[in-house]
């Protein structure tokens, strides 16, 4: 008998002939009105930089956030209108070839993406490798990540954010602030292996 059958048999024996069925009470909050100010407040608390703008100033806000960028890396489906005010070098993943880790690891590279959904209560961005977010490596290796969030993408809490994901089997990355460690005397220090700078541009229909 292989390990699989042995383990499954051991579990059945441990549980006995009629394991008790357990009902799961879900009396916690699962919805609510998303609060953009709260979202911004949480991000700032993680020491992420935040810019707020209206739809018409998005391109200008992007250009501002990219002021010290040498090369901008973007996913294949990033909307062109986000870049109309930026005049630096832009490399698009997969066009003509996938960007290499070395490309992304060069000094001065910034990754610009959108997100799938965001969470106000925890200040979290959820990336699901959608067309405006791209492969996971894109937001991992560069030292600077700029992420555009439309107010309508912000969910109040974790449950409603998960429910909004189109397909949970896509590669998912939850980002809450820049990479950090609490390993030295439990003090949070920003900037270990992921991007050391995280900037979020929040786009609100009526401007900030």
């Amino acid at each position, binding site marked *: 008998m292989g390990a699989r059958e042995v383990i499954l048999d*051991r579990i059945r024996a441990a549980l006995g002939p009629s394991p008790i069925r357990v009902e799961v009470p879900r009396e916690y909050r699962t919805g609510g009105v998303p609060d953009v100010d709260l979202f911004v407040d949480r991000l700032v608390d993680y020491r992420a930089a935040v810019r707020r703008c209206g739809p018409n100033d998005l391109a200008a806000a992007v250009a501002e956030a990219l002021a010290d960028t040498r090369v901008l890396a973007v996913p294949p489906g990033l909307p062109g209108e986000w870049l109309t005010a930026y005049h630096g070098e832009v490399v698009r993943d997969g066009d003509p070839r996938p960007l290499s880790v070395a490309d992304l690891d060069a000094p001065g590279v910034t990754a610009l993406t959108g997100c799938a959904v965001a969470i106000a209560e925890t200040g979290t961005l959820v990336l699901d490798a959608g067309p405006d977010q791209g492969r996971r490596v894109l937001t991992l290796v560069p030292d600077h990540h700029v992420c555009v969030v439309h107010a309508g993408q912000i969910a109040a809490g974790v449950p409603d954010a998960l429910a909004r994901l189109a397909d949970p089997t896509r590669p998912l990355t939850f980002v809450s602030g820049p990479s950090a460690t609490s390993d030295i005397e*439990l003090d949070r220090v920003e900037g270990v292996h992921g991007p050391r700078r995280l900037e979020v541009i929040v786009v609100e229909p009526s401007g900030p």
Partner: protein
Amino acid sequence: MSNPIAAPRPFPAAAHDKLADRQLRANLHRATHTIRDKRLRVVAELPDWQRLREAASALKADAKSRLPELLTQFEAAATAAGATVHWARDAAEACAVVADLVRSAGATEVVKVKSMATQEIGLNEALEAAGIAATETDLAELIVQLAEDTPSHILVPAIHYNRTQIRDLFRTRMAGAPADLTDDPPALAEAARRHLRAKFLSATVGISGANFAVAETGSLVVVESEGNGRMCLTLPQTLISVVGIEKVVPTFRDLEVFLQLLPRSSTGERMNPYTSIWTGVTPGDGPENVHIVLVDNGRTTTLADPVGRQALHCIRCSACLNVCPVYERVGGHAYGSVYPGPIGAILSPQLTGEGFNRTLPYASTLCGACYDACPVRINIPEVLVHLRQTGPHPRAERAGMRAMSWLMSDRRRYAAALRAARRGAAPLRLVARRAAKRRGSVPSEGDQRETVRRLPWPLSAWTASRDAPLPAGPTFREWWEKEHGRS
């Protein structure tokens, strides 16, 4: 190879040595109190915290009761998504599976994300024996690996080091560390980043654990902070994840409970910086070869105990360590297992089975702080008492209990023993009083109860495994007899 979850020495002996280490106690005190305060602040923000705990506890109990069904569901979903699922009965089998996979990937080096399961099975040592070098990439694990030490905390394995000690370690043992490195935490983190960057970019095999495995979708979840996890999960061509069979949760939706409870309970943050969730292979994005090793290693025997099985609900947040008065004073090493603190005291003896870790269920005052803190509501004191009752008692404890029951079953015998104790301890009381005076302080409530390490026979059997309070002056009964004569 020594067993990473079987304590080599009894807890009282190991704890006794650790208590004498003042630097260790200062580091632990500072760290555990910082994290406690942070945890309380962020837990208080959620009005439904208790409801989340109730849901989590029920979710875990439900998953346990349907484990065969959920594991096979997980296996089918992960396989359909392109992963290969392996099963391992024990640590040796799990290590052999992983070593074979690394070998067939043609690698002699692997990068690792911090994982309790791989520590539990002693994977690094097994890989080394197979000629494979494993690099720990979590900052604290790196510190511990450089120091040739062992982790002392589930979440912050280097909690027993302060910043100055870490700086000295980096300066002397980490290749490429600047000679003028300061003990400023950002500078220390930067030094580690540079050191590990090259390894991440060249590694072909990554090894991880998983915080959760979702039966419905076949997904694995890794919760982390530094981004070293994302590096290991994304850059190598081959990814091997070692997962305890108790990590399975029924549905993707269930993560909505655990992703709220875990970060707040562990680092005291609203959310940890990075959580990765992946399902099998995604062409063009991340590893092409994805392996999952499902490990038993004592979990099924633990599951067979209707009281003890709740230890399998643990999500390894380490909140119970941070609030434990015993852990705070002795640190993680005294427990002699990769699972220290209150959870270690109930999990290690159950995973190893009889014959190991006999003293661990006694490594607690039963104060209940761990139960209150536990996000999945494991009743740790209940399991401790249960294990004390059902497990083999340590020898000294057995002798102590037998002597006490003999003494206490006869009033005269007991009174005589107390008198002997008082006479024996009289010089100690004097010393204690002088010491208090020397400290120049009015002894605080806690200090006033001076303790004695060894009482004269027959109470010596009691103090063989614990300190006793200094016996009081005359008892009321004795005083009465002296004043009024025998009644």
